[in-house]
């Protein structure tokens, strides 16, 4: 599902060059749940951004669900982001002027697709957001916003779900619930799930744990 070859991302040049990613090779199979663990500054978020089409690599090849990201124009990239990838951001990235329900359905609205009402109800129920659908993000606590962001990532039934510290602001009970939900979604709907976390317990729930350090994947 995801194939990455010799992925490099450098910022700047000369002495002050920062090597965020320094040659990453990776293959993630369809339906697999991969966790990425590493210290801050190891390049995890950069890596996830590139796979999700939010950033472009300096060097290397990225193929997601058969699509070579290098060859995409802006329009196609936008469609890729809304249909193929469900991204859960570290800072939630909810649109402040839309209600929770509208935020969740945003990718579908962009696409003009119709909502699967029962699926929507299911996800909302699982994340405990039924009461908050008409509320604006400013009125929600951090954790509630995070759950809304997770719902949004799942609603379009993307092939790949990329989660950047999705349980960061949740307490352990909720965090485990969410991780479990993500894993279940991956299995039941055959979605590929790549999750960044610093919580080793959650990482253990994955099929595969990858360690990143200094822009590379290292063995345990």
């Amino acid at each position, binding site marked *: 599902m995801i194939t990455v070859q010799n992925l490099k991302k450098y910022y700047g040049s000369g002495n002050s060059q920062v090597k965020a990613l320094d040659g990453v090779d990776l293959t993630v199979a369809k339906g697999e749940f991969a966790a990425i663990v590493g210290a801050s500054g190891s390049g995890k978020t950069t890596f996830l951004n590139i796979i999700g089409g939010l950033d472009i690599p300096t060097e290397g090849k990225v193929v997601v669900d058969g699509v070579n990201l290098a060859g995409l124009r802006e329009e196609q990239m936008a469609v890729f982001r809304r249909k193929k990838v469900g991204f859960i951001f570290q800072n939630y990235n909810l649109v402040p002027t839309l209600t929770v329900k509208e935020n969740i359905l945003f990718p579908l609205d962009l696409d003009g697709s119709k909502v699967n009402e029962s699926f929507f109800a299911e996800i909302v129920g699982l994340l405990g957001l039924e009461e908050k659908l008409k509320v604006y993000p400013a009125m929600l*606590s951090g*954790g509630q916003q*995070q759950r809304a962001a997770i719902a949004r990532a799942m609603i379009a039934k993307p092939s790949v779900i990329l989660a950047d510290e999705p349980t960061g602001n*949740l*307490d*352990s009970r909720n965090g485990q619930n969410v991780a479990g939900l993500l894993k279940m979604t991956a299995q039941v709907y055959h979605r590929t799930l790549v999750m960044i976390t610093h919580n080793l317990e959650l990482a253990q729930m994955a099929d595969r744990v990858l360690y990143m350090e200094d822009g590379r994947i290292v063995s345990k």
Partner: protein
Amino acid sequence: MASINLPEQQKKGESDMDAIVKVTNLKKYYGNGEALVKALDGVDLEIERGKFTAIVGTSGSGKSTLLNMLGGLDVPSEGSVRIGNQELARLTAEQATIFRRKQIGFIFQNYNLVPVLTVWENIIFPISLDARKPDRKFIMEIVNLLGLESKLDSFPNQLSGGQQQRVAIARALATKPSIILADEPTGNLDSRTSDGVISLLRVTSEQFHQTIVMITHNPEIAAHADRVVHIEDGRIVADAS
């Protein structure tokens, strides 16, 4: 400017077992009718001087609201908050601000340092607001403890997240406040740095007999404190030492 009567700061060493924070039947409601939100629904709490207390709760449990009450940033709908001998609800906004400057230290989740000031200037900022002279010896002690000696002339945007949080801690300590309120102090830090910061908080609490109240959603972080108070749906549900 009218003179403001403030309670005298309690001298150190005096009655260490006193409750420095006393919260009685604290309620905070937002909105009304159907849209009524009960952020705090009757909280009673006493915090001893010199202790490191953690308040744990899920998102929406009311812990942030409680912290705002303790810091005088918000006014309760009902109930009382006492810090030292001062009943916060009786202060005007102006008096509350001055009280806050002298008696309360804040540590925010996203540091909130002043970008145009150096580290040193940030640390003494609340003291300068008071037009007082900083106690250089005391502040250098804090700086050394937090490992910031080499960074005093740097600007916040030149520091890492962990370093910025340490500056924030120094800032909170510099005024020798009655209590320090920390709002998710490790929220933006990775686990290794988080551990470092929490240990520092412990150490300062012990070394300077500083009362620290920290809120967090993470029970592991909370476990570092002397006392863990659980809050849920605006009420205290558990209290463990």
